[in-house]
């Protein structure tokens, strides 16, 4: 409002006209569409997010050239709509409350939080430290144990490489699982090039590790166990408390990648004996480009930093802390701790509605992952006799993925599902549905109806499905070799 008045006072003629004209437009619009009206003062400045992205000639938003095999064209007659977002494990929308907390630090309060000589620095430092407390309290930690990073990938790299390199020589063995995120697996691969031994635990059909396997894998020179809290593809929750207890009794550091878990399930680093824990901002309705690492102080965990320089963040992560992002992460954590019970109850209800809705109308649908030890907001379904990528392409109105965003460009079946022992055809036919704080019942019902329609259609075209309908057991068929 004040913005509009400002322009009026300055007498910018074209703007004046548009401001004057807009109430009428708004009034007309309000008659036709009673539901939502852009206020007159706003319409003068309104800009579509897409419009800002577009160039002179209107371009169709398609995947970049590196994304293999995808040709995206819009559905007929639906040229001006956006698909429903159901990929919450890839990223989540920024909560408006988070943006509200961040905006002052992107505009007026731009001080460097490490500046000690003036109030610009002090006010930003105060906000960054308050955010640190919010993050710490969400996981039952002390704020001195929180280090800001650029995201969970950096947190995972820092904890795995940092611990291993610090204790190198004395201890040389790391344990992780086959279903970890790529950044954990890749950090371990780098370390095995540096001479470390890495054990990749296999998981059961339900996606959970066996405690006996873990016990058996532990050696006197094991320095670190890194096991993720909630899996990003199938949503299973590993037995953190048991793992933590075992590791503590053997004096081994326990790192967990909790990017998908923090703010969604209760986590207490002391109760669970977690020594290092990775947090991501944008998975919990916070901003992208920020994360945190919890590093235990007692008993102390020592790390070799990845970045050297100004010695910020207790020397573990040099570089100016991104104050607006840190504030956003803190606010996201504050909201998460306040809303966890409410969100969880709702996500659970929507998740049950989705699974029941699909399974009641389509046969041969299997849920991947454990039935009980699973975060309900991550639903991974395999549709037998349907090719997952074809289904994804058919479901143009819904933003979905068959697995993690990092590997969504490749047509390989997910390594996580293969680690569960899934047959290749079932791994190929899987789709992940992500449900979050802002998902609505209406969206779930829409998704159910589209999925049911397209699975039926794709199966009708499938010769395999026809054979199944005729009662032929496909797994018993001996296929002729190609000449």
């Amino acid at each position, binding site marked *: 409002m004040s913005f509009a008045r400002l322009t009026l006072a300055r007498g910018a003629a074209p703007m004046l006209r548009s401001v004057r004209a807009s109430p009428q437009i708004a009034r007309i619009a309000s008659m036709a569409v009673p539901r939502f009206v852009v206020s007159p003062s706003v319409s003068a400045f309104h800009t579509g997010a897409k419009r800002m992205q577009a160039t002179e000639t209107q371009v169709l938003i398609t995947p970049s050239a590196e994304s293999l095999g995808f040709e995206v064209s819009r559905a007929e007659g639906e040229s001006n*709509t956006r*698909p429903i977002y159901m990929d919450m494990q890839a990223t989540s929308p920024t909560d408006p409350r988070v943006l509200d907390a961040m905006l002052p630090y992107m505009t007026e309060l731009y001080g460097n939080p490490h500046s000690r000589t003036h109030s610009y620095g002090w006010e930003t430092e105060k906000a960054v430290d308050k955010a640190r407390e919010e993050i710490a309290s969400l996981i039952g930690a002390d704020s001195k144990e929180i280090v800001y990073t650029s995201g969970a990938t950096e947190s995972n790299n820092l904890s795995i490489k940092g611990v291993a390199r610090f204790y190198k020589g004395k201890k040389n063995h790391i344990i992780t699982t086959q279903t970890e995120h790529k950044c954990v697996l890749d950090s371990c691969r780098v370390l095995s090039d540096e001479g470390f031994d890495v054990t990749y635990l296999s998981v059961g059909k339900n996606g959970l590790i066996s405690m006996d396997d873990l016990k058996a894998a532990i050696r006197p020179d094991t320095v670190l166990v890194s096991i993720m809290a909630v899996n990003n593809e199938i949503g299973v929750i590993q037995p953190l408390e048991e793992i933590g207890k075992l590791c503590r009794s053997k004096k081994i550091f326990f790192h967990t990648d909790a990017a998908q878990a923090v703010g969604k399930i209760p986590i207490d680093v002391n109760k669970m004996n977690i020594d290092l824990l990775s947090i991501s901002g944008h998975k919990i309705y916070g901003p992208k480009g920020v994360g945190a690492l919890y590093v235990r102080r007692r008993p102390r965990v020592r790390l070799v930093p990845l970045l050297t320089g100004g010695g910020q963040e207790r020397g573990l992560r040099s570089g100016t802390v991104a104050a607006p992002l840190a504030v956003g992460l803190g606010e996201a954590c504050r909201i998460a701790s306040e809303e966890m019970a409410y969100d969880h109850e709702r996500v659970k209800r929507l998740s049950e509605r989705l699974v029941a809705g699909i399974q009641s109308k389509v046969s041969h649908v299997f849920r991947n992952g454990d039935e009980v030890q699973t975060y309900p907001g991550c639903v991974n379904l395999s549709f037998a006799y349907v090719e997952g990528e074809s289904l994804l392409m058919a479901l143009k109105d819904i933003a979905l993925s068959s697995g993690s965003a990092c590997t969504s460009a490749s047509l390989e079946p997910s390594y996580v599902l293969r680690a569960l022992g899934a047959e290749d055809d079932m791994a190929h036919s899987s789709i992940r549905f992500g449900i979050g704080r802002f998902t609505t019942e209406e969206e779930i019902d*829409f998704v159910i109806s589209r999925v049911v329609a397209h699975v039926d259609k794709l199966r009708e075209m499938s010769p395999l499905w026809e054979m199944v309908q005729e009662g032929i057991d496909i797994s018993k068929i001996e296929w002729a070799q190609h000449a």
Partner: protein
Amino acid sequence: MSSAVTSAAHRSQVLSLYRSLLHHSSKFAAYNFRDYAIRRTRDAFHAAKSESDPEKIQAMIHKAQKELEVVKRQSLISQLYSGEKLVLETSKHQRNFIGRH
């Protein structure tokens, strides 16, 4: 007597806050935020309906006032950068938000 007076004062204050929150929540241009803001407001006020401790009521009023400021600012921002509507907001799926409060 005095508690009856304060509770009557609270009542009108709470109702007016509730109405303003719903009103401004319905101004979010983004479907998901709009739906959430309205739903969260309803659920929060509903859950606190039988609260009788004046101190707690005062604290909740204070919190709701702060939330209202956030909703006012953020619904405006949502309007400034609004994009295309979601597929289910097209005519056949349209849902009337204003008629519900």
